[in-house]
């Protein structure tokens, strides 16, 4: 893989083993050049020596150091490690026996470096390996020479984030001293880490591991680290060189074709720290919280912006698809099997909280090579790998969260297709991938992350709207299949209801404080500022119609009034104009005048020949303020019968007019012209007028309430009195009507309380004399009082 020329020869990555055989130096150089600053072997070696020296010291000191430097870990891990350390005890590693990892599970590697949860068998394997001088010899040969802290690691540089605290040596016990002493500042330079405790072959052995194996170990180891400051990560991982875990693994790999590759490939050295530190810092920088949460479907607002890829130090044991060690039981076509829970955990969990128990031991033990160590499939793995590791080709992948948007029929078809395809392609793909040391650069978590983003874009609140043809097509297919299949199969194919994203109203309401005056001016992308606070008022049709009608009528009235007014003005100005006009125009002017007057009269009349006035019209006109004014000005110009008729109409409708006039109070404009009209009336007309005024029952009372009405009444009465007093042969007394009317008026006047009797505009003087004719003394007195 390090030689490009091989590409054009056989187009395969996995050259023969010979192809990979190169000088160590060449490989190292290549790594240096290509992959940047790597691990620092010097420190690693120094660390090794130091550890070896420390080994002789009291184990207690080591323990203390351990406790001091520990990062947050998980108790189960500690327990597991305790067990393994106990086991080691028996194996004869006395100095380590005192190791009790109560606190930190993190990078503190014990002899077993079993961060993955203390796999007993694994630790055993490792022990064996360590004890094996042959392997040690091989490892020693591979040990790279000391070099500055330039790049050492190959692809582990890309996994810089992956590395926290992976122990290089079997015992990094004394290592925690480092962070203990320098707890605050990040270490950009690797301090002398713990050296292997009397296990020289340890580190070199790790160099024999394949890149992938290291990956696994790294990831395992860093799982409990969760979200930590970069400082702490590097502090703790300082002294650790390449992965050391797998001496045990290596043992069993001897036979596999991988071993040769492992030997040749070498191991990635420590990744450049400073660079990674910065990278870490950047990704951990917390953006300010949003003012409003994004719309549906977006991931929950977190501290880390969406664009950042997932952090590495998660358990990536899931990425076993390509693990060379897993070749045995699983044909690659099977693919990753995840329980739904696992999947949910992956998708939803932050870096931190991945349960240790879940990923459990790495998949390394699952390889065929480790069969002898287990009676059966390792229990922790059981729930993660759906089928037991005996290789099931035709399993149904569990429903995943991110595929719930598929039509169920579609999913079924895809499943079938996948299964059939998996069996065919399994072998070849597996072989190829098994020899690719660079595979799985993209971790499972990252793949899930990208998938998640892609699926998010597919979310839809209305699938029929967004993807109509897709839905219909699969529905049809389903129907067709149902028709074709017999009823027995019906229960087998259970209907899946694809969950849809709920259509939730996401109206953003800006922050408001109760009791404060005004609103905060808050404006964001999701909530732009409102320019106009417009409120929609809807009216029903009926209301609108009615309103419209009313307005139309009023407008009509106003229009009529205006028209009449203009005519009236012309009529009024006639005289002036007539005088001023030259001789020849006077005729025309006169003609016009006549026309105008007729028109005016006609406008009030019901019919052209009839003198009766259209009551309705009059009242309508009078309902408008201007109309009243108009009438008052018009009355003098009307011919007397018509004028009388108008006055009659007024008195007839006085209550209504009075009501309408409540706001304007301008009825009194009419007094003068009306009085003029009244004085020209005949007696019978006058009587009629009085009768009209009295009108129906109770009208008089209303009349008396109204100023104009009272005035009018008095006017009428005084006129009558005048008539009687002046003209001896007045016909007023011819019929009893007048008398009766006066009587009723008197009665009314007496009965009405003084308060409700509104004072008239003026009091005609002869009223008293009128009343004296009809009433007796005592009533007269009362009336007098009232009228005063």
């Amino acid at each position: 893989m390090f030689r490009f020329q091989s590409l054009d020869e056989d187009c395969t990555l996995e050259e023969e083993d010979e192809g990979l055989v190169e000088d160590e130096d060449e490989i190292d150089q290549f790594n240096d050049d290509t992959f940047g600053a790597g691990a620092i072997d010097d420190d690693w070696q120094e660390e090794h020596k130091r550890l070896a020296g420390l080994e002789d010291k009291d184990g207690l000191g080591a323990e203390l150091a351990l406790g001091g430097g520990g990062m947050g870990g998980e108790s189960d891990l500690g327990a597991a490690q305790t067990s393994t350390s106990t086991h080691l005890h028996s194996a004869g590693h006395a100095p380590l026996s005192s190791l009790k990892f109560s606190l930190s599970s993190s990078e503190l590697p014990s002899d077993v470096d079993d961060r993955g949860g203390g796999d007993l068998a694994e630790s055993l394997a490792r022990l064996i390996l360590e004890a094996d001088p042959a392997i040690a010899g091989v490892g020693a040969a591979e040990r790279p020479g000391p070099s500055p802290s330039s790049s050492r690691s190959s692809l582990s540089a890309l996994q810089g984030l992956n590395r926290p605290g992976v122990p290089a040596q079997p015992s990094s016990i004394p290592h925690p001293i480092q962070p203990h002493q320098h707890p605050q500042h990040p270490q950009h330079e690797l301090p002398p880490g713990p050296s292997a405790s009397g296990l020289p072959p340890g580190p070199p052995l790790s160099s024999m591991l394949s890149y992938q194996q290291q990956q696994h170990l790294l990831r395992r180891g860093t799982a409990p680290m969760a979200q930590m400051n970069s400082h702490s990560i590097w502090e703790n991982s300082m002294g650790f060189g390449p992965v050391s875990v797998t001496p045990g693994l290596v043992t069993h790999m001897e036979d596999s074709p991988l071993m040769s590759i492992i030997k040749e490939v070498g191991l990635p050295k420590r990744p450049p720290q400073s660079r990674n530190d910065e990278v870490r810092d950047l990704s951990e920088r917390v953006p300010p919280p949003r003012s409003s949460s994004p719309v549906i479907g977006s991931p929950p607002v977190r501290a880390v912006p969406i664009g950042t890829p997932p952090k590495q130090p998660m358990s990536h044991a899931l990425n076993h698809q390509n693990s060379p060690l897993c070749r045995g039981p699983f044909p690659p076509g099977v693919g990753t099997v995840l329980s739904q829970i696992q999947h949910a955990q992956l998708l939803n969990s932050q870096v931190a909280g991945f349960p240790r128990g879940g990923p459990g031991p790495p998949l390394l033990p699952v390889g065929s090579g480790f069969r002898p160590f287990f009676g059966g499939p390792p229990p922790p793995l059981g729930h993660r790998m759906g089928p037991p590791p005996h290789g099931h080709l035709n399993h149904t992948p569990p429903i995943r969260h991110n595929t719930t948007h598929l039509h169920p029929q579609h999913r079924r078809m895809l499943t079938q297709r996948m299964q059939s395809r998996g069996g065919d392609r399994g072998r070849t793909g597996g072989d190829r991938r098994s020899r690719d040391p660079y595979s799985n650069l993209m971790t499972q978590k990252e793949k899930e992350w990208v998938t998640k983003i892609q699926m998010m874009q597919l979310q839809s609140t209305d699938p029929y709207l967004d993807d109509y043809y897709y839905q219909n097509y699969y529905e049809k297919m389903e129907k067709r299949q149902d028709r074709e299949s017999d009823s027995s199969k019906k229960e087998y194919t259970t209907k899946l209801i694809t969950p849809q994203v709920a259509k939730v109203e996401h109206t953003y309401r800006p922050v408001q404080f109760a009791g404060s005056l005004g609103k905060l001016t808050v404006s964001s992308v999701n909530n732009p500022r409102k320019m106009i606070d417009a409120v929609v008022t809807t009216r029903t049709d009926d209301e609108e119609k009615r309103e419209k009608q009313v307005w139309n009528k009023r407008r009509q009235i106003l229009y009529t009034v205006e028209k009449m007014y203009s005519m009236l003005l012309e009529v009024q100005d006639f005289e002036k104009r007539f005088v001023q006009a030259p001789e020849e125009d006077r005729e025309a002017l006169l003609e016009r005048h006549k026309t105008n007057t007729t028109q005016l009269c006609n406008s009030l009349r019901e019919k052209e020949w009839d003198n009766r006035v259209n009551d309705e019209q009059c009242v309508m006109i009078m309902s408008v303020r201007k109309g009243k004014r108009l009438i008052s000005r018009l009355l003098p110009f009307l011919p007397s019968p018509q004028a009388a008729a108008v006055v009659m109409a007024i008195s007839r409708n006085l209550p209504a007019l009075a009501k309408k006039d409540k706001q304007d109070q301008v009825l009194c404009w009419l007094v003068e012209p009306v009085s003029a009209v009244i004085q020209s009336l005949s007696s019978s007309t006058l009587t009629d007028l009085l009768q009209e005024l009295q009108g129906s029952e109770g009208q008089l009372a209303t009349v008396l309430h109204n100023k104009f009405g009272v005035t009018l009444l008095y006017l009428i009465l005084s006129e009558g009195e005048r008539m009687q007093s002046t003209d001896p042969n007045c016909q007023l007394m011819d019929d009893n009507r007048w008398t009766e009317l006066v009587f009723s008026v008197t009665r009314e006047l007496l009965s009405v309380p003084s308060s409700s009797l509104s004072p008239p505009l003026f009091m005609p003087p002869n009223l008293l004399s009128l009343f004296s004719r009809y009433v007796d003394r005592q009533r007269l007195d009362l009336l007098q009082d009232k009228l005063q």
Partner: protein
Amino acid sequence: MNYVPGTASLIDDIDKKHLVLLRDGRTLIGYLRSIDQFANLVFHQTVERIHVGKKFGDIPRGIFIVRGENVVLLGEIDMDKPCDTVLQQVSIEEILEEQRLQQQAKQETDKVKMQALKDRGLSIPKADNLDEY
């Protein structure tokens, strides 16, 4: 295994050998190692293959990161299929030389063509492939 069945996703193409054609006309062959939501690609052991006539040459380039928007097409290379025997591989220098000659010839013909058009009073505006806006 398709992580997103029913849709197209590059997840399944990871760690496989691919051929990608870029917008500037380059052809890259390499192992697709990583992708992201914009279809930015990370190629490993990339080789730029230059074709001139029946000859081709490979220039090793190492690791390539291709911005998604610059990809014209991307296809997996089937390792099982036999390689094309029609094309003849030559050394890098030779292929570059051939390419240079080809470019030169093209320029010459273009020049002649433009001149001919100009003589006739026509002109073809040069299409700007890099900027669609």
